[in-house]
């Protein structure tokens, strides 16, 4: 060691570059820290949202009583004028905190009574706080949460029980029953009446088409044709009238049924006393979830937590999307991504095979590669613009003219919809699939191909039986990456069919089951819409976080799987080159 040791250090440090290395490593570390921070932030807020919080009752110094959940607390700088008015104890405390005062965001709920969902309360305003044991949190269908103390269980407006145990046992007794009735009513409204509306619309269009054919025939002035068209028209008119009558009867029957259900489930309610002394009757069917927040055991807390997650994943959105579930958005995203894959995977694989196995001239491949890289580099919004103009307004409008002319001027395919969204995203993700497939085909050693040719196989047979099976993991990678891209992309979807609230799912029980023309909900768009278009943003932000967590989880899991498959593929074929 001594022999080669440098004695003169004049350029030693310069050649080591240690200082710059720290800087370079800093670049890497900052990226890693940022991503870790981002994921932790989303995890913390996304997972923490559904933890049941205790109910805090605050008595303010001005005599006001508030009750609710403390959802957030933060320090803020108190202005001088306010500070001077405080008493010494508060002054001392605030001084200790560096002139910063703590404040709490209290979710006070009871919106129809207070006109506020949230309220900021500063520490100095609070006289004392308590955690009332008999206070209940109720998550309702409408108006957000309700906080109160149950007083009476009522049936038909008459008190059945007034003691706590009685109320609880009655609640347990009737709640499931009432919810079942309510669900039945919703299902009738949505499914059966929806079906009726759908059929009657179909018949109406048939009639309109017949009338259009008739006037077309009249324009030709051909007696025979007019007669024929007239006959068809009259037949469909008669059909329509008959159908209309039967539908009306059905419709009335359903309405009656709904009324009966409504009457029955509206009988049950619980009478509450709120913290500000008001009384309020909450109908039993409105209650989605209710619990004594300050009496929960750990396992009950876990139960509430998971039941909220279940609602989030399987429920319908409520309260302008800011509560409830995101099932339609999950469903829309999945259906859209699957339809997209149906287009993008075959085409991407074919294009990659062409480039790797068929295209001969180097020039052509260069041009193709530039084309593909451009496809990958074109901003996604440009695809949206193209999709809207080309697919919806050009292709879709032509389809409407040919097949849905009776419905015009209301567009069927001539506006954004799930098919056009899928096609647009298919174009967008094409390069992903091409590049991944190409890589996989590249990894298939040439010796295998040559062996196949030597056995007398044709090119297609070689591709079919030798290349493609070995490239399959790579194709899968491309497929998964494309899906993850499709799930996360929002900008083009804003133009070609994603909506805030889709009245109908793209797949349902009405023939032809898959409705490609319908608009749909999408998780990414849901985040944008909730975070930016919703009026009550304090209430929406937890939902945004949870949805973000869900979306990130989906996208990251898809990516990790894809990366894993790719890495395995690389390893596998490194070993098999012979």
């Amino acid at each position: 060691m001594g022999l080669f040791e440098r004695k003169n250090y004049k350029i030693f440090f310069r050649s080591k570059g240690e200082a710059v290395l720290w800087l370079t490593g800093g670049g890497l570390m900052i990226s890693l820290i940022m991503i870790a921070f981002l994921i932790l932030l989303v995890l913390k807020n996304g997972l923490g949202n559904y933890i049941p919080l205790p109910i805090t009752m605050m008595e303010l110094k001005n005599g006001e009583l508030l009750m609710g959940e403390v959802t957030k607390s933060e320090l803020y700088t108190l202005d001088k004028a306010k500070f001077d008015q405080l008493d010494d104890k508060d002054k001392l405390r605030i001084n200790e905190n560096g002139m910063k005062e703590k404040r709490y965001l209290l979710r006070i709920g009871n919106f129809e009574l207070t006109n506020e969902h949230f309220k900021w309360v500063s520490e100095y305003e609070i006289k004392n706080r308590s955690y009332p044991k008999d206070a209940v949190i109720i998550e309702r269908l409408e108006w957000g949460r309700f906080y109160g103390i149950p007083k009476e269980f009522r049936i038909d407006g008459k008190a059945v029980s007034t003691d706590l145990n009685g109320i609880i046992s009655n609640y347990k007794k009737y709640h499931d029953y009432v919810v079942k009735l309510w669900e039945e009513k919703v299902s009738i409204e949505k499914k059966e009446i929806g079906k009726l509306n759908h059929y009657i619309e179909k018949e109406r269009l048939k009639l309109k088409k017949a009338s259009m054919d008739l006037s077309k025939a009249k324009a030709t002035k051909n007696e025979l044709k007019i007669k024929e068209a007239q006959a068809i028209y009259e037949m469909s008119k008669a059909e329509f009238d008959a159908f209309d009558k039967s539908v009306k009867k059905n419709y009335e029957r359903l309405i009656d049924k709904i009324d009966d259900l409504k009457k029955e489930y509206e009988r049950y309610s619980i009478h509450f006393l709120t913290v500000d002394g008001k009384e309020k009757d909450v109908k039993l069917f409105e209650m989605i979830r209710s619990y004594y927040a300050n009496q929960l055991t750990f396992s009950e807390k876990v139960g509430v937590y998971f039941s909220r997650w279940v609602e989030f994943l399987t429920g319908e959105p409520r309260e302008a999307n800011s509560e409830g579930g995101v099932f339609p958005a999950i469903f829309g995203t999945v259906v859209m991504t699957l339809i997209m894959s149906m287009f993008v995977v075959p085409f991407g694989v074919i294009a990659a095979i062409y480039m790797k196995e068929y295209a001969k001239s180097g020039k052509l491949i260069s041009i193709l590669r530039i084309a593909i890289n451009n496809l990958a580099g074109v901003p996604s919004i440009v695809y949206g613009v193209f999709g809207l103009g080309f697919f919806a307004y050009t292709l879709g409008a032509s389809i409407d003219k040919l097949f849905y002319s009776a419905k015009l001027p209301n567009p069927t395919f001539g506006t954004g919809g799930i098919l056009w969204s899928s096609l647009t995203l298919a174009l967008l993700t094409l390069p992903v699939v091409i590049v991944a497939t190409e890589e996989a085909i590249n990894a298939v050693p040439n010796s295998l191909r040559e062996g196949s040719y030597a056995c007398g196989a044709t090119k297609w047979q070689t591709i079919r039986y030798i290349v493609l099976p070995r490239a399959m993991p790579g194709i899968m990678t491309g497929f998964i990456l494309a899906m993850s891209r499709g799930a996360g992309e929002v900008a083009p979807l804003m133009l070609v069919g994603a909506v805030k609230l889709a009245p109908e799912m793209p797949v349902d029980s009405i023939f032809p089951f898959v409705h490609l023309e319908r608009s749909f909900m999408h998780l990414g768009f849901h985040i944008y819409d909730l975070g930016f278009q919703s009026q009550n943003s304090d209430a929406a932000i937890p939902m945004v976080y949870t949805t973000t967590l869900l979306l990130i989880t989906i996208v990251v899991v898809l990516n990790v799987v894809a990366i894993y498959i790719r890495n395995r593929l690389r390893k596998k074929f490194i070993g098999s080159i012979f």
Partner: protein
Amino acid sequence: MRDKNFARRAIDSLAKYLITVGGIGTIVAVLLVFLFLTYTVIPLFKSGEVSDRKSVVVSNELSFKHAVVDEYGLLGVVFDGKSFSAISMFNGEILTKFNIDGEIIGYNFNSKDDSYTISDSKGRLMVAKMNFGKNNIKSGDTTGNPNYSIRDGKIVEIDGDAESEYSVDIKVEEILQKDYKIVLVDSVSSENSRFLAFLDENKVLHIDLLSSKENMLTGEISQTIDESLLDMSGIIGGSFPKYLKINSSKTNIMLFFEDSRFINVDTKNFDNPFVLEDKKLFNDGRKITYLDFLIGRNTILVGDDKGNLTTWWSVESSLSKNNFQLTNIHTFSSGDETPVRFIYPSKRDKSFLVLNESNTISLYHMTSGKKLFQTKLEGINSQIGLMNQKNNKIFVIGKKNIAIFDINIPHPEVTFKSIFGKVQYELTNKPEHVWQSSSGSDDFEPKFGLMPLIFGTIKGTIIAMIFAVPIAIMGAIYTSEFAHKRYRNSIKSTIEVMASLPSVVLGFIAALIVSPFVENIVLGLIFCIIMIPFSLIFMGHLSQLLPKNTLNAMDRYRLLGIAIIGIPFGIFLGMKTSVIAEKLFFYGDFKLWLHTHSYSPIGGWALILLPAGIFVTMFIYRKFLYDFYISILDGKSYTICGLIEIIKFFILTIASVFVSFLFAAILTKIGIDLRFGLPVIESIMSTYVQRNALIVGFIMGFAVIPIIYTVSEDALNAVPEHLRSASLATGATQWQTVVNIILPVAMSGIFSAVMIGFGRAIGETMIVLMAAGNTPIMDMNIFSGFRTLSANIAVELPEAVIGSTHYRILYLAALVLFVMTFIINTIAELVRIRYRKRSSQL
């Protein structure tokens, strides 16, 4: 056997055929996107279509003063000074005639409600209103080929089964009775009041406000009249003005004389009107031959006897504020020198029709300055040119016949210059780049200048790249050359996961988490950006004090040191120094400093110029002091060298700060302020907005880091291993190998990585849409919002009407984006192909 072979071959060639079609299809897809966008954009720049002239002979010879035509171009009303005649425009038949008894002296047409304000010699003031109506008699299927006929003074349209009637109801209402002769009159009406101005024979200007009020209880309508007078006989002198006009805001009454004299009466104070301006519009003796307002009553169109048409509006004088003067903005020359006979402003947009004595009819669009149509008419003694409200028909009415042109000019306001150049919009002082596609008011003119959006796109991209490029490239270098082999793959995978994060998530975090958070610690953040690199380099120097063997084994722990000590210490330093700096240079409040003119800009300049200071200091050091420094180190021991290095680092840091302050002082002394009034970019730092370019740049940088990182890491990895080995074998250190061998070879690959990242940032939509505030302004202020092409498309395209100018301009925006990214990606790909060739030769 043969059969099977045949089938085999057939399948083989079929597969080949199909796959070729699919492969070529991808090129076609790119082309299709481009072609479709172009196809949608092209109609914007087309000049439009004008049909051949159609002639209609008028049943009775006409004489005119003015005329008006209905929305559909079927029914016209001609005013000849005594009576109104309704005339069918398709066959020239006179349908009804409405006589007004008395001699009419003054009249003025108000295009907003198709009414004439008339005064007669007996001092009567009247309003004659043309109520055009369409009455659907029978609805039914239409063929699109209607037949017209006349029945009971009405025009009947029969189209297939549908039948409609067109008629005009002329209503004359007396509004005032005076006992003197009224020579000139104009009026503007609003919901329940009418503003009137008239000049009597004694040259006294009367300004009247007629307002009607409905009694809430009785329902009775009571009228009140306020009047103020201005005796102008002294000012006017001998001649009489020819035109009297009230502007839209009723603040000015303008009198024009034939010899181009112009008197402007200010009526802002209703009871106390005064003469604001008295001047000649033309100094070269040109005379006014016709004059009218453009739609909206803001711009005056003046036709003169030399065949020119000039547009005028009040512009604030550049010399003194609040001093408005009627100024000539555009000049349109018809080409022949005959006087202008008639001007008809369109009821739809800012275009107008000009008729010259030589029977030349021209159609111009004011804002774009575009000549839309011009023709010389033969065989007609043309008096008046008209357009219907749909702007699809031009009528030129002569004494005996009418010439009709069907026109279809869908985008009169668009020229290449109006989109990419500066345009002077109505009532503005100077030409500007503006994007404003919609507004609440009725006669609003959409302003489609793409420059603010392109500027915003570039602004966001540049700031993002300033963040992303150093971090990504340094990260790539470190991962591929220095990171421990065991972690290399997981680091790469993590960053690939970062690439997959949906941008809507980043946008949400930028807008709702980062923006409110940064708002309170702006200066701290900026100082962190400076102090983190400082702290890292400082820690690097400190680690040189470690024993040599420990230093050599540093590779394992360096990242840990960076994460645990380097970056946190940088943040700590940044926060602490920012507090001191805020007190010293920013008057204790950075945000206030940003928009206070009187505060000195030196601190801000020093911040911005710090990179320049570092650059200059390093340049001087390397050029002049390096040898001296090496000579100091000569023969010193390891630890002493390390200490001297640290001292050098501090001296250089202080020198850099000093140099940047020196530059800042010079700029401040000259009077250049980075907060206000810089040329083109306006400002670098100015008024703080919560959703600003700094935050968007930061988050967008986060979004493009992975792509730059991945591509440059690939480029670094692709450097042939033998080069690396050869360099190390000659005794070069790893760092020397990286700087001298690997980076130069991988440079073009890294360049293409940067280009690809650039392309990504240009097109990024969601982050900008959510966090940039979307204000289409043009300044480089890092604390203001901006609007990019992509965000603009996302916001406005869903509301644009298919085929409208707005729609097509948004397609143009998409095309501009496409072309920008196309160029960048193609360059990147070409560089990469060359690089691949070169590195395979090495």
